């Protein structure tokens, strides 16, 4: 088989893209299978005898285990709440005209752009006063500030694509708005709802700033614990990289599932 030089260049370029995207990720996973000696080798070794010791350490560390549990609980709960609150709101935005609609949109977009530090300061003080500091609840609520807009946006888009005739027909049969929402929009909009839920889970799972500021001992999330290993004299690199891998792997799989929607999710649909 002969390849023209242009085809060869194309293949080479694409290979570079793949190496570029995966290299840091690969380097982390490789380090998670290295012994401390192999990691500290200078220059770094590319071929090594893999060890499972780091993962043994991670899975027997109750701190990591607890943190992953916390992350799982918080991300699931905030996602469920975001869908529960966001889907009905999305229906209203998709099918009704009312005053203040543009303002609501503006609010959602601003939230996508706002630095978490802006809310972290007052929420910290409020949580301090109400005793909510270091509870699951405070993170579940504060994560809604970015999850709710994502869910509302994606679901609005999805609901708009449902033919209005279906709704008109149902209304002629005497169905009220709530029945229409439940029987038509929820089932037909399910794919969009699922995508928005996955996004909401990924963002919550990945979040560090709020978790760092609003938690202490009890509800540290996985990124907080992974970061906390980064102090002290001799860093346990293998364990850190194994923890990193454990954190990143599940959300990477989720992200691959919604990869077709990635751009729309991240731009709030400004580009299609």
């Amino acid at each position, binding site marked *: 088989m002969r390849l023209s030089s242009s085809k060869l260049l194309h293949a080479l370029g694409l290979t570079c893209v793949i190496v570029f995207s995966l290299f840091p990720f690969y380097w982390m996973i490789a380090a998670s299978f290295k012994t401390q000696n192999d990691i500290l080798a200078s220059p770094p070794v590319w071929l090594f005898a893999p060890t499972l010791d780091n993962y043994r350490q991670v899975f027997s560390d109750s701190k990591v285990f607890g943190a992953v549990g916390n992350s799982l609980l918080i991300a699931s709960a905030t996602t469920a709440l975001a869908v529960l609150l966001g889907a009905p709101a999305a229906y209203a935005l998709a099918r009704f005209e009312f005053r203040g609609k543009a303002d609501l949109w503006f609010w959602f977009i601003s939230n996508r752009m706002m*630095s978490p530090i802006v809310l972290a300061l007052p929420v910290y003080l409020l949580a301090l006063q109400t005793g909510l500091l270091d509870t699951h609840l405070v993170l579940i609520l504060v994560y809604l500030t970015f999850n709710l807009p994502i869910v509302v946006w994606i679901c609005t888009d999805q609901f708009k694509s449902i033919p209005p005739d279906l709704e008109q027909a149902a209304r002629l049969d005497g169905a009220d708005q709530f029945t229409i929402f439940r029987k038509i929009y929820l089932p037909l909009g399910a794919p969009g709802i699922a995508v928005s839920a996955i996004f909401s889970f990924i963002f919550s799972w990945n979040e560090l700033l709020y978790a760092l500021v609003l938690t202490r001992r009890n509800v540290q999330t996985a990124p907080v614990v992974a970061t906390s290993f980064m102090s002290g004299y001799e860093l346990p690199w293998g364990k850190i990289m194994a923890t990193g891998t454990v954190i990143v792997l599940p959300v990477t799989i989720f992200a691959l599932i919604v990869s077709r929607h990635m751009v729309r999710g991240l731009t709030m649909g400004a*580009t299609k």
Partner: protein
Amino acid sequence: MADMTAKPNRGYRRWTPFWFLAPAVATLLLIGIYPTLFALITSFRRYNIARPREGFDFIGFDNYASVLTDSTFWASLGTTARFYVSVLPIQVMLGLAIALLLHKTGMGFLKALARVTLVVPLATTYAVVGLIGRLIFNRDFGVANQILNAIGVGGFDWLGSPRGAFTAIAIMDIWQWTPFCALIFLAGLSMVPGEIEEAARLETTSKWALLRYVQLPYLLPGLTALLILRSADVLKLFDMVFVMTRGGPGAATDLVSIYIQRVGFRIFDLGTASAQAILLLVLTILISRLYIRILYREVQ
């Protein structure tokens, strides 16, 4: 935007949308507006919780005055701006190159694989990106220095030197967000109607002319979105930089979110930090307005 042709409902009662919206709006008021107002009030008070003896009096615009004359605050905004203009051109150019590679016909399997792997950097937990950066850019056993040594440039102390640290966080940001640019541009390229692209290819063999006169108009909305979104992203960039450098060495990587976090949660001067946060919020609102005005024209 989604199609706007769908007719709004007729014959519904006036309050129907209210019941669907109320739970979401009430929640947003509670978790968004109320804390923001609280921050606004705090920004007018002396509020250092590490020094409760000083009291929590209202001091008018004193916090704002001290923020606006605080050279470190301005320096952190300057560093943030410098970071933006350092990473964005590279992300845009690399992203465009990748998008063109993915748009080109042929190499189906390799293209599909490349398209999928682009999602990996985007999904990687930002804090973990920082952890990976610490390993890659380690002075003694980092792979970055190994590569530099191999090509004969010689390694250096990335995270220990101001320029090195700034470059290192820039490289990690470029790694994470170039795929985002690539995917946006790819979406733009696929909007070019097939007939037009075919016709243009018959007219010219110059790829540059094709890009400039046929494809560019379809890329511009995406580029505008990128310029605005990335500016907001850089203003809120915290996780990766916090893990990699904590803003150091010195103030080399002291981005604005890092600085405000330090004033609020290391020095515990929440009054000053709140004033800084409110100023950042105003900046963000301006950026959002711009985004909506330019990209959601058809909604308004």
